[in-house]
């Protein structure tokens, strides 16, 4: 009896320790970034162009580029992902083919991001002649986050009670209208929650945009989706490995990391606000 009690304590202790370690690791990383990066942050840093071969000045073009690429990735990944999930859950006959497609999607989620980058380079940049551009980068990132969005959308669609579908169909409303008017609005908060993860990932990825969109340095801001952009993750990579003066730019590197984390959190925050707004009146 006593031994069982002890075992329980040991087990609970291990579980608690795991949770604590994760929290500490996350807290440690965030603290380290903020501690090292906060000094570099100023109004000038986030609103000005880099100067002196990127050892001084700001990182505004990179912030803007990351925002463009993220919006582009959402614009491509979200509709495509939701549409795929609707097909898989609402329309496709459940069977071997659907299972095969789902396995394929899961495999896609496991493909290293550099592979997406190479695919983007080969297909969008070279074959479709989009060049290294916002468009190519957005498409590549959009495909990268597709599995996450499809997975989240499938779960959210399945969570909509079957009784809603039945009620709508029993009124003589067509299947598509039922999906569009009843199922999708009720699934949307869940879809967004899951998609946040994908979007955050897209904003922080370096490899997929390295060959498809990101510029080492551009003096001018992008004028169209066919222009190259600077981007925060790639800028960090450049400063830390190939900059003109790696040691001297350490504070800028940390400052850029801090801004990147803030941008990702900002994107998440917007999605959470939209989700909260849509969830009102949507309880069942």
């Amino acid at each position: 009896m006593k031994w069982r009690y002890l075992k329980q304590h040991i087990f609970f202790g291990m579980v608690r320790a795991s949770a604590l370690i994760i929290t500490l690791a996350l807290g440690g990383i965030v603290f380290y970034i903020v501690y090292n990066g906060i000094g570099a942050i100023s109004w000038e840093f986030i609103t000005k162009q880099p100067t002196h071969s990127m050892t001084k000045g700001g990182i505004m073009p990179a912030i803007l580029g990351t925002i463009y690429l993220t919006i582009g990735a959402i614009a491509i990944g979200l509709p495509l992902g939701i549409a795929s999930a609707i097909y898989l859950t609402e329309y496709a006959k459940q069977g071997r083919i659907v299972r095969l497609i789902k396995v394929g999607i899961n495999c896609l989620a496991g493909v290293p991001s550099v592979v997406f980058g190479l695919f983007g380079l080969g297909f969008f940049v070279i074959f479709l002649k989009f060049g290294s551009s916002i468009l190519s980068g957005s498409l590549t990132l959009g495909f990268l986050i597709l599995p996450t969005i499809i997975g989240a959308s499938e779960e959210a669609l399945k969570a909509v009670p079957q009784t809603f579908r039945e009620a709508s169909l029993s009124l003589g409303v067509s299947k598509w209208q039922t999906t569009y008017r009843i199922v999708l609005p009720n699934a949307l908060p869940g879809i967004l929650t899951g998609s946040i993860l994908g979007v955050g990932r897209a904003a922080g990825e370096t490899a997929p945009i390295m060959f498809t969109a990101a510029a080492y340095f551009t003096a001018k801001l992008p004028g169209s989706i066919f222009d190259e952009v600077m981007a925060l993750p790639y800028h960090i990579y450049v400063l830390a490995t190939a900059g003109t003066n790696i040691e001297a730019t350490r504070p800028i590197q940390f400052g850029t990391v801090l801004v990147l984390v803030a941008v990702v959190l900002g994107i998440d925050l917007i999605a959470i606000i939209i989700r909260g707004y849509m969830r009102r009146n949507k309880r069942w």
Partner: protein
Amino acid sequence: MESNAIISINRVNFYYGAVRALTDISMKFRKNKVTALIGPSGCGKSTLLRLLNRMNDLIDGTRVEGEILFEGQNIYAPDVDPVEIRRKIGMVFQKPNPFPKTIYNNIAYGPKLTGVNAGDLDALVEQSLKQAVLWDEVKDIMSKSAMNLSGGQQQRLCIARALAMKPDILLMDEPTSALDPISTAKIEELIEELKKDYTIIIVTHNMQQAARISDETAFFYIGNLIEYNKTEKIFTKPEVKQTEDYITGRFG
């Protein structure tokens, strides 16, 4: 029962995969009457009800044999659009299932999307809610979510929602089994009122309810139609021993 039949079922078999759920059912439902379908759980009465507006189409691997004539047309003919059938044959479910929308939009939803009776939506919503005897309770909170209504109110809202499509037939699948006695009494009164304008087919587990509200009663047992007759006949002098055993509570 030959006269004024609105639905005729001819030799219908129904299968879930390899399992036969209904065996060689033939029966007619009369216009502007309340017909009750009774029988123990799993006897096929709900399955039959859902055959009448093709709701069983939604389940993969089901199969129908035979024909179901609605106003002379086989609703399982290949050229028939189930969506059209459901506009004329409405349904109320066991558990109240309002949409997470406002009260107004719950009622207006069907007419608006199908373009049926969509001319004067406000008037239609009011009329439907009055028919379902819910108007007085909700007329001041039309823009509130229907999810805030009580269970009984939600079920009457669902009835109003079905009525807004102005169907010919109203199918009810144990509509009061999730409700308290007072709400149940209200729905039963409502059914009494509605049969002037609609044909009602109701599945119920509650024998007293079938006896109270229906004109005709059909008793099912393991996928077979055992006995079908005037309600008072079924409940006073059933012809089949199984029917008598069931209604007197000896099994089921």
